[in-house]
C-alpha cells in the first residue's frame, strides 16, 4: 500500500508542476493575443460606430454580471468621479 501511495504522490506532484506551467503558459499566450488584438484595433480604428455604440453598450453588461442595477452603478460612477475631481 505505502509504495503505491508514494508513486501516486509522485504523479500528483508531476501533475502539479505540469498543470500549473501549462495554465500559466496558456494564459500568458492569451495575454499576448489580447495585446495583439488591442494593437490591431488601435491601428485600424472603427469608424463612427465606436462613439455611438460605446456608452449604451457598457452599462447593461455591467449590471448583468455584477447583479448591481444600472442606477446604482451610475450613482457609484458619479460619486467616484466627484471624488477624483476633489483630490
Amino acid at each position, binding site marked *: 500500500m505505502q509504495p503505491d501511495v508514494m508513486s501516486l504522490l509522485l504523479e500528483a506532484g508531476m501533475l*502539479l508542476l505540469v498543470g500549473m506551467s501549462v495554465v500559466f503558459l496558456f494564459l*500568458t499566450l492569451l495575454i499576448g493575443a489580447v495585446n495583439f488584438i488591442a494593437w490591431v484595433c488601435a491601428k485600424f480604428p472603427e469608424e463612427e460606430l465606436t462613439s455611438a455604440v460605446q456608452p449604451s453598450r457598457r452599462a447593461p453588461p455591467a449590471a448583468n454580471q455584477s447583479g448591481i442595477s444600472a442606477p446604482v452603478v451610475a450613482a457609484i460612477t458619479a460619486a467616484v468621479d466627484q471624488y477624483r475631481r476633489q483630490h
Partner: protein
Amino acid sequence: MDKLALLWQSTSLAHFEMGQIIMMAVGCLLLFLAIVKKFEPLLLVPIGFGAILTNIPLAGFSEPGGLLYYIYYVGIETGVFPLLIFMGVGAMTDFSALIANPRMLFLGAAAQFGIFGTLFGAIALNLVPGFEFTLKDASAIAIIGGADGPTAIFLASKLAPELLGAIAVAAYSYMALVPIIQPPIMRLLTNEEERNIKMAQLRVVSKREKIIFPLAVLLMTILFLPSATPLVGMFCLGNLMKESGVVDRLSNTAQNELINIVTIFLGLAVGSKLSADKFLTIETLGILGLGAIAFSMGTAAGILMAKVLGKFSKEKINPLIGAAGVSAVPMAARVVNKVGLETNPHNFLLMHAMGPNVAGVLGSAVAAGILLALVG
C-alpha cells in the same frame, strides 16, 4: 389481516432504512441553507429536493425507469447540462475589464494552484486509513478549487461519477461560503497599506475587441488544448452571441430561460446522486475538507501573485484583487470590493476585481482541460 400486512408493506414506513432517513435530513438541511440562509438558492433548492426524492423507498426515482435516473443519464452522464450552463455563463460575462488589463490573466492562472495543490493533498490523504482516492478521483475533487460549479460537475461526471454528488455539493456550498472563507485569508496576507492601494481607471474597450476576444480564446484552445474545447467552446459561443449584438434573442435565451431550465434539471440530477451508500462515507468528509483547503489555497495563491505582479508593474496593483482569481463570478469580486471598502471607503475595486474574476473562469476551464488530457 393479510390485506393489512400488504397495505403496511406498500407504505414507505415499512421500508425506510437509516441511510435514507439521514440523506433526507441532508436534503432538508440543503433546503434550509437555501431558503433561510440564502446560500446559492438557485442550485441548492433543486439539489436538496432531488436528494429527498431519490431517497424515497419504493418510488424508484433513481432506478432505471425513474425520472431522476433519466435526467441524470441525459444531462450529466453525457456532460450536456454543465456545458449548456457554461454557454449561459459565457453570455452573461463581460470581458472588458480583462481586455483592458490583460495581465490580470496571471492572477486567474495563479489561483488555479488551488486545484493542483489539492490534487496533491487528495492523494496524500491516501496515507490516512479509510481513504483510497485514485488519481481520477483526486482530480475530480481538486477541481472544486476552481470554484466553478459547471466545470466541477463536468469533470466529475467524466472522471469520478460515483463522487459527483459530494463534489457538486461541496463546490456549491463553498461558493456560497466565499464571503466567509476569503476575507480572513485576504486580511492575513495583506497589510493596511496594500489594501489601500488605488488602481488606475481601466481604459474603454472597443466593441470590436470584445467580439474578437472569444474567437481568439477559442482559436488558442483549439490549437493548444483541444480537451478543454467543450467547456471553452460553449463559453465562447455564449460570449460571442452577447458581444456580437446581432443575436440578442439567442443571447437572452442562453442567459435567462435556457440556463434557468437547465439549472432545475442539473440540480435535480445532482441531488439524485445523494444516496446513502454513495454520500454517507468517509470519502465525503475528505472531499468537504479538501474543498475548503482548495478554496483557501487558490485565494492565497491569487493574492501572492498579485503582490509579485505589483512589484514588477509600473501601475499599482491592489493585492486584494488576486483573491478574485478563483472564479466564483461575481461573488469573489464583490468580496474583494467589500474588503477594499472596509479599509478605504472611497476605494472601489469591483471593476478591477472583475478582470481576475473572469480570468479565473478561463483558468479553471483550462485546468479542467489539462486534467482531462492527462488523467482522463
